[in-house]
């Protein structure tokens, strides 16, 4: 039997599969179907310093090969998350990655300061797709210099390993990855959703603008993982359009050490456990004893 467990920032993860931030509730929502302890790690919904109400509806819309969401980062805030939801993961002994965001640099720093190290917290995941209010709403993650500065400061504040989650809507994602690396980032999560819109031809209007996720995002995410993992020597989590175990394996081969699954769970709520099982089956069938034998194999 192959082992698909891995060590990630010094913590043992059962398998390389996580949920993507914002796609598995706050904590126990999936429990009537399967338990969060099934995951390599649970990634929290995007959390901010203060509670955030999010956008009016419509917030979701589907397309032939994916979906658009405009949730607007609704969340109860870091404090309530740790009071109300974190104990659940402690009870279940499930490793957690804390996704967070801010609308100003100070908010990111305050978030990072608030989150105390815990043996279950594997890493912080900074969502850099968030609009920077002081820069006229352009997202932090678009400019290498901004990324360098904010990563440097966050790294100076927290002892917890930090992942930067990057937006694909940039001139060259490798430049962004390099800037984060030079600032001392511990790893990257690639990629966030792509800006998109829907046109309703009957009503002749745009009912929703938001972030696109799902199968159409996969080749774009694979390219980002492939290029960035060659360019920077830190672990990468691949995310975007993963629907089955073959998709997950392709991310590992492109250079990702772990993967996250988002929209697929809405199509099939058992997608994650099926993918975990499928990766194990793939490894067994191909005689690979551990995942290191396939991670980044396409680089050779």
């Amino acid at each position, binding site marked *: 039997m192959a082992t698909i467990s891995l060590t990630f920032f010094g913590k043992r993860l059962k398998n390389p599969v996580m949920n993507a931030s*914002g*796609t*598995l*509730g706050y904590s126990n*929502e*999936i429990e*009537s*179907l399967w338990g969060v302890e099934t995951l390599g790690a649970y990634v929290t*919904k995007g959390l901010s310093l203060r*509670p955030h*109400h*999010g956008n*009016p*509806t*419509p*917030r*979701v*819309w*589907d*397309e*032939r*090969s*994916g*979906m658009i*969401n405009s*949730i607007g980062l*609704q969340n*109860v805030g870091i404090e309530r998350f740790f009071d109300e939801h974190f104990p659940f993961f402690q009870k279940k002994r499930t490793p957690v990655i804390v996704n967070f965001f801010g609308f100003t640099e100070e908010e990111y720093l305050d978030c990072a300061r608030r989150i105390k190290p815990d043996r279950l917290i594997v890493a912080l995941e900074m969502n850099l797709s968030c609009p920077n209010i002081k820069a006229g709403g352009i997202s932090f993650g678009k400019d290498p210099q901004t990324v360098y500065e904010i990563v440097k400061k966050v790294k100076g504040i927290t002892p917890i390993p930090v992942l930067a989650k990057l937006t694909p809507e940039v001139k060259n994602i490798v430049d962004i990855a390099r800037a984060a690396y030079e600032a001392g980032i511990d790893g990257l999560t690639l990629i966030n959703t792509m800006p998109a819109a829907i046109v309703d031809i009957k009503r002749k209007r745009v009912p929703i603008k938001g972030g696109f996720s*799902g199968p159409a995002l996969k080749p774009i995410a694979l390219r980002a993982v492939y290029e960035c993992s060659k360019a920077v020597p830190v672990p990468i989590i691949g995310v975007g359009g993963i629907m089955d175990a073959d998709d997950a394996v392709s991310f590992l081969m492109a250079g990702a050490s772990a993967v996250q699954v988002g*929209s697929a*769970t*809405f*199509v*099939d*709520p*058992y997608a994650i456990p099926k993918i975990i099982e499928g990766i194990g089956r793939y490894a067994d069938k191909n005689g690979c004893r551990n995942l290191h034998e396939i991670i980044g194999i396409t680089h050779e």
Partner: protein
Amino acid sequence: MDDIEARVVDNRNIVSNYFLLRLKLAKPMGIVRPGQFVMLKVPDKNIFLRRPFSIFDYGRDIVTIMYRVVGKGTEALCKAGKNEKTLVLGPLGNGFTITKRDVCVVITGGIGVAGVHLLIKTLKHDASIFYGCSSKEELAVIKDIMERNPAIATLDGSRGFQGDVVTLFRNQMKTFKGKNIEIFTCGPEGMVKNIRKQIEKWKTPCQVLVEERMACGFGLCFGCVVKTIDEKEPYKRACKEGPVFDLWQLSL
């Protein structure tokens, strides 16, 4: 709640764009309460997300859904033929709470009846039903509750009261005077707002089944929210905290 394989038993056009779909489940679903719904996989590879539909009826592993064709998902759904395979995730959400009242008043219109049909069946004969639609042809939709003597409003006046269902209800409100009533409703936002206007003075208890676009159907994505008067956390998930809400908690 579980995700259950199912096959189409029949998928019948009732009238205009209304359909009745019966699905045979591979195993029984959990206990179904009126107002609960399922997330149905539309058997067409071009439809990415599932669609939420109220459980119109359920028994002996057969779940019945009544739907109106309004867009690409329901257009694809009406093409599903006998024996076609699909998946049914459910039962989902919190249904109606049946309380002890002198009279339960059900007000609905058009496809809204799909959301309250099981409730009407459960309430047996102590319910007062108001139904509105565009013309008498559309009454085919409520054929099996006709024996319950619903008060009917048609926009064209071809049957019952001519006008909308809330006006019809308003005209009959005095018959409920002095009685302890509770209203149950499901329908377009305009109708719900009108009901609210009529009962504002008395703050009559009223449970509303809301319909919002959904992605997951059980609390994962926060896509389906409705705005409430809770200042701390105004947006509640229709699929998890709902789909039935107390009218007086909603911010309409």
